[in-house]
């Protein structure tokens, strides 16, 4: 969809934002950017750089509804819109937020959409028809009467999009719409939105960490840095081709297809001896589709090299060397000598007569990183609570080191099993960062001098120096996460359970965290992680468990999960990592 008309639909000119309680500290400083008709513009930036604030400036919520100082101007079709009237603004700039649970005001889908239309004074006779149109666009016509809280995460986000569309805005802003969704739902939402803009004259600003579902539809890219200024504005491939290094340093997620493409070029180039392989030939593929098209078009010789390299890549987890101390011999399949730390047998848990998990048996071995994945609401978090003894199973048993959980003393159990929750705030118990880290040492009645030493060590290791006297709640999202992990790790647990630890983290923070967890597993401890990110599963996990409707549908090394039939993966809401998809595509094209 090449835009013929290059007049910007929305133009932000030197926007600066100051919040009252941060006097002197600009959230945004002099941001200028433009959105063009029919295009999807992706706004990227490290965590906490003010992307969401910019979105709220563009639709007039700052400074109209939230006390703040905004300078600069927003122009719509070259004119300054009357952003003082929220009803008008909502018809101009629609917005969809990240959290599906706190962006609705009513109980049912129809009420929510009617609420939007009543707000702008739409005559009653038109409301029914407009609701129907909006629901058709997001393919939710059969959910009109349903209560919003009974819908899935992906459906809720589609309701939010419908709520914006029903007002027929010129510009739609999506503020991390897929960060709470499983990979398949995220891809579905991206596809739907792309289809939508063929139907409507829609200009879209997308703010997102998770690039992969969206990148193939993105027309323009705007990159912000930590200080809240725009660093880059233009075509996405040019940015990722030329400024990959800066992006990585700033904590910006890189399209995984591009990373893989580079690595493959290197591998195939070195062994294949191609003259032009050292520098990147042609455009850099950003999406999985482009990558597959690019590589299946290469000569057979290069493809063979690439296939080999991909296989090696996918199999590296199965190599015993990565498993550290725990493996004794090169046996096929899991070694018998591996020590089983935690064993669950025929676990079931019922909540209000409904089985949340049923008949689950699994074991966690020393020195492994076990990933647990599956659709939203599959029972993963409940399984964790039961495994750690926080919830009593309705039937079945959990044994730690051969001893059933109820036989352990609470304090001892807690020092053996660590648990990192999805939202770091839930785990914080003290008033300052120092007390937070000292908390469990104090419970163990250690001397204050010893505690001081240990806490200082932790502060350094987790890059929290200088924040000792801060309130944990005043930290940034990434710092909070590091603090909650640091506080949890202050004991040397044998088993660490992590519930979506990379949630809301930027690229840098997520990678750091995952490699930290991998290092623990390599030390011979066990780590179990809930994650939706299949690239992480591929890169870090030894084994993966797929849950659906409360039971285990797959258990084994990641590589054998990717070779499952597409139908099965689709049912589980999974999308294999790009490397696996590329390998499959090349093998189909060249059955050697």
């Amino acid at each position, binding site marked *: 969809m090449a835009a013929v008309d290059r007049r910007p639909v929305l133009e932000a000119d030197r926007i600066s934002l100051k919040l009252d309680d941060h006097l002197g500290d600009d959230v945004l400083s002099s941001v200028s950017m433009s959105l063009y008709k029919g295009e999807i513009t992706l706004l990227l930036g490290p965590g906490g750089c003010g992307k969401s604030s910019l979105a709220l400036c563009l639709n007039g*919520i700052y400074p109209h509804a939230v006390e703040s100082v905004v300078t600069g101007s927003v122009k719509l079709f070259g004119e300054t819109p009357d952003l003082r009237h929220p009803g008008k603004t909502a018809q101009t700039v629609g917005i969809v937020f990240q959290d599906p649970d706190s962006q609705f*005001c009513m109980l049912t889908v129809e009420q929510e959409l009617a609420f939007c239309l009543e707000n702008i004074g739409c005559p009653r006779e038109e409301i029914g028809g407009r609701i129907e149109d909006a629901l058709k666009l997001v393919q939710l016509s059969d959910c009109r009467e349903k209560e919003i809280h009974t819908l899935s995460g992906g459906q809720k986000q589609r309701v939010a999009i419908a709520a914006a569309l029903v007002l027929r805005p010129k510009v739609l802003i999506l503020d991390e719409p897929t960060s709470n969704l499983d990979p398949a739902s995220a891809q579905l939402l991206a596809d739907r939105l792309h289809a939508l803009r063929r139907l409507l004259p829609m200009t879209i600003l997308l703010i997102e960490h998770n690039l992969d579902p969206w990148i193939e539809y993105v027309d323009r890219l705007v990159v912000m840095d930590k200080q809240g200024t725009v660093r880059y504005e233009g075509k996405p491939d040019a940015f990722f081709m030329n400024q990959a290094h800066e992006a990585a340093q700033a904590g910006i997620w890189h399209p995984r297809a591009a990373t893989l493409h580079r690595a493959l070029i290197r591998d195939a180039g070195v062994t294949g001896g191609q003259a032009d392989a050292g520098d990147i030939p042609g455009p850099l593929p950003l999406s999985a589709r482009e990558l597959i098209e690019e590589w299946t078009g290469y000569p057979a010789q290069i493809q063979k090299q690439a296939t080999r390299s991909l296989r090696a890549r996918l199999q590296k987890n199965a190599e015993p060397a990565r498993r550290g101390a725990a493996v004794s011999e090169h046996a096929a399949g899991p070694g018998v000598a591996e020590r089983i730390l935690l064993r669950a047998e025929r676990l079931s848990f019922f909540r209000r007569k409904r089985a949340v998990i049923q008949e689950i048996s699994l074991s966690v071995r020393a020195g492994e990183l076990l990933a647990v994945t599956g659709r939203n609401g599959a029972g993963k978090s409940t399984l964790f609570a039961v495994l750690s003894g926080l919830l009593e199973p309705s039937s079945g048993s959990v044994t730690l080191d051969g001893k059933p959980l109820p036989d352990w003393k609470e304090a001892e159990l807690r020092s053996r099993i660590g648990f990192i929750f999805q939202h770091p705030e839930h*785990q914080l*118990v003290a008033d300052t960062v120092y007390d937070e880290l000292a908390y469990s040492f104090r419970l163990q009645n250690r001397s204050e001098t010893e505690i001081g030493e240990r806490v200082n060590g932790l502060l350094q290791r987790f890059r929290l120096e200088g924040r000792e006297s801060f309130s944990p*709640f005043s930290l940034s999202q990434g710092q909070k996460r590091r603090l909650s992990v640091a506080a949890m790790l202050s004991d040397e647990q044998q088993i660490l359970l992590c519930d979506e630890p990379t949630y809301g983290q930027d690229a840098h923070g997520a990678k750091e965290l995952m490699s930290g967890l991998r290092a623990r597993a390599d030390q011979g401890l066990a780590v179990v992680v809930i994650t939706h990110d299949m690239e992480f599963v591929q890169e870090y996990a030894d084994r993966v468990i797929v849950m659906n409707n409360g039971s285990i549908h797959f258990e084994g090394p990641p590589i054998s999960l990717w070779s499952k039939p597409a139908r099965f993966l689709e049912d589980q809401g999974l999308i294999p990592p790009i490397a696996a998809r590329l390998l499959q595509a090349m093998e189909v094209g060249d059955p050697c």
Partner: protein
Amino acid sequence: MLNVQSEKSVPVPRPRLLRLEELNPVIKGVTVVLCVLPLSLVFDPVTTSTALVMTLLVTWIFGNVSWRRWLLLFSPFLVLACGYFWTAAVFPREQPEPGSAILWSIGPVRVTAAAFQVALSLGLRTLLYSALSLLFMLTTDPVKLMLSLMQQCKLPPKLAYGILAGFRFLPLFREELSIMQRAHRVRGAGRIRRTPRSLLEALKRYGIPLLAGAIRKSERAAVAMVSRGFTGTGRRDFYDRIRVTWRDWAFMALMLAIVAFSCGFSYAMGTLRWYNGEL
């Protein structure tokens, strides 16, 4: 306009002429208040128990109420009523009248017929009021109530939609608290002793994060509302019109008739007594 209304309600099966769930919430609420007012002037067991039985009948016949839920919500009032009954029967406010017969006694504890009468009225009255409130609460959809308050009583939309948004958060709070309790237990901070200091500590530990979460959520909800064009002022053309129909007036007449009948029945039995400062 009327046929639009009936079009909308066509798919809803309507086996009964009068359904409490479909009544106008404001009129229903006003009816309940109108019933409570005269009944609070009467103070004898016969009137109250007659009205109580008939209220239960109305709830049962015209309402689609889960009786388990009804009993669950009713039980605290039942306990309360028994407490009132016992206290008023054994420890009457006034010295027992000399002429009043003693119904039973254990040692110094004795219950006179007069005290028994007062206690029974008091206990039944508690039950009657709670039955009337439950009749309203269990058959009223909160969204409809707010819409009705805005449409019939001109409640400012800012307040009404604010309450509705808050109402949506209640189950989220419960969930968050239970997650937090688990998270704190993991940190070894789970044990709360029953000492005042420890309880205060727990209040702080859970209260601050819950409040912080609540503020963040409400901010997000407020931003979402504004970005949907909500201003809280001006006239709205409501999509879902909550009307007042003859059914509402019929319900009001029925309930007032029940009150009148109870009083009349009691009068005929010769037991009607007005409230005369017994408490």
